[in-house]
């Protein structure tokens, strides 16, 4: 499909946006979705695939310890309420961001964990993207490895739509949108590295460039900096909107967290 054609389709179907396969207007068709891991070298791929070699597992095992540790005024561990994470957290990362009807707002996985920590464990909030928050997120996300991303909650639609608008918006000194790189030029080399389709299926993940483990928000900050745009402030609603849209456009892709990326 030509870019022009897809733009027209985007206009036509924009209002009818729904998390359903046939309505992926202006986006990469399902059959052509490619994970970032498919563009990596065999060595980086092998590092991701073997638990013994994947540095992200160091965060997963810390998260497991935190899952089982009592915390807060409630003196409860995550495990005291949820039981085994393998069962309780299966698929949870794959369906986040989710809409929390009680609070009438969308939350990402870090937000759901944070809510339990503060409201249910009655413990002080963990530093956002700090080592413990990342470790818990890594452990919970690990329980979705291999499961398909499921963006099916109709209540998320307005958020997905605003994320989509951000994704297509030209920003920064280079006047680029996310789509310029990840929808129109994926597969091409940029400074020696193949551009991916920009999917969120590996997060949180271990990035060689960071020499550490990090969140999707951190990756998005990197992209905004690369576009010579001012990154949104930490925790800004734009990140949640982008995440909701990225999950929607990656609907059906298997989760890889803790992935490894160059």
């Amino acid at each position: 499909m030509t870019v022009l054609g897809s733009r027209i389709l985007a206009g036509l179907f924009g209002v009818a946006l729904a998390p359903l396969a046939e309505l992926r207007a202006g986006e990469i068709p399902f059959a052509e979705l490619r994970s970032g891991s498919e563009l990596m070298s065999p060595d980086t791929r092998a590092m991701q695939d073997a638990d013994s070699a994947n540095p992200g597992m160091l965060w997963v095992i810390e998260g497991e310890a935190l899952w089982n540790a009592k915390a807060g005024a409630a003196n409860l561990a995550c495990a005291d309420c949820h039981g085994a994470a393998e069962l309780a957290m299966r698929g949870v990362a794959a369906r986040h961001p989710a809409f929390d009807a009680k609070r009438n707002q969308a939350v990402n996985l870090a937000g759901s964990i944070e809510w339990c920590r503060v409201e249910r464990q009655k413990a002080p909030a963990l530093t956002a993207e700090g080592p413990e928050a990342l470790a818990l997120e890594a452990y919970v996300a690990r329980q979705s490895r291999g499961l398909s991303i499921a963006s099916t909650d109709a209540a998320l639609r307005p958020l997905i739509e605003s994320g989509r608008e951000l994704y297509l918006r030209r920003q920064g000194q280079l006047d680029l949108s996310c789509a310029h790189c990840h929808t129109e030029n994926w597969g091409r080399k940029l400074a020696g590295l193949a551009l991916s389709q920009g999917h969120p299926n590996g997060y949180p993940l271990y990035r060689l460039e960071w020499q550490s483990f990090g969140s999707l928000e951190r990756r998005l900050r990197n992209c905004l900096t690369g576009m010579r745009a001012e990154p949104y402030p930490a925790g800004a609603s734009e990140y949640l909107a982008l995440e909701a849209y990225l999950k929607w456009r990656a609907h059906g892709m298997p989760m890889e967290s803790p992935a490894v990326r160059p």
Partner: protein
Amino acid sequence: MTTRRQFLEGAGALTALSVIHLRAAQATPVAMQAAIDAVTGGAVLRPGRVKLDIPPLVENGNSIQCTVSVPGPTPASDRVRALHLFNEKNPQPNMFGVRFGPRAGPAKFTTRIRLAGTQTLVAVAKLADGSFWVDRVEVVVTLAACVEDP
């Protein structure tokens, strides 16, 4: 509308900035030779026996898996005492030195290294008979390891 060509040129120009520039105090082949001499005592390095396995082209200089080994059977007379890895461009020429003890198995050591740019790596094996063996491999790095700012 931006064409693909224009786009790639613009974006390529900006990412060039993110390629890290080395400090003046980088290891030179001379510094590397000195580090090798410190291990060998200036003994002759013979090509062969030792093998350095590393991908010839790497995506990110921050973490590259490599294996130094002396393949094949090793009779007691030429048991492998140590394996070393050196580089010519990182700020420091030494990368690792492994000494094998009484419980050693096959002489083989795998780890992940950092490389500040395209360069030649030198692996050295010391055998029980006092001989030193060498393997050299050139590695092309598209994104160098951070030796400057985080």
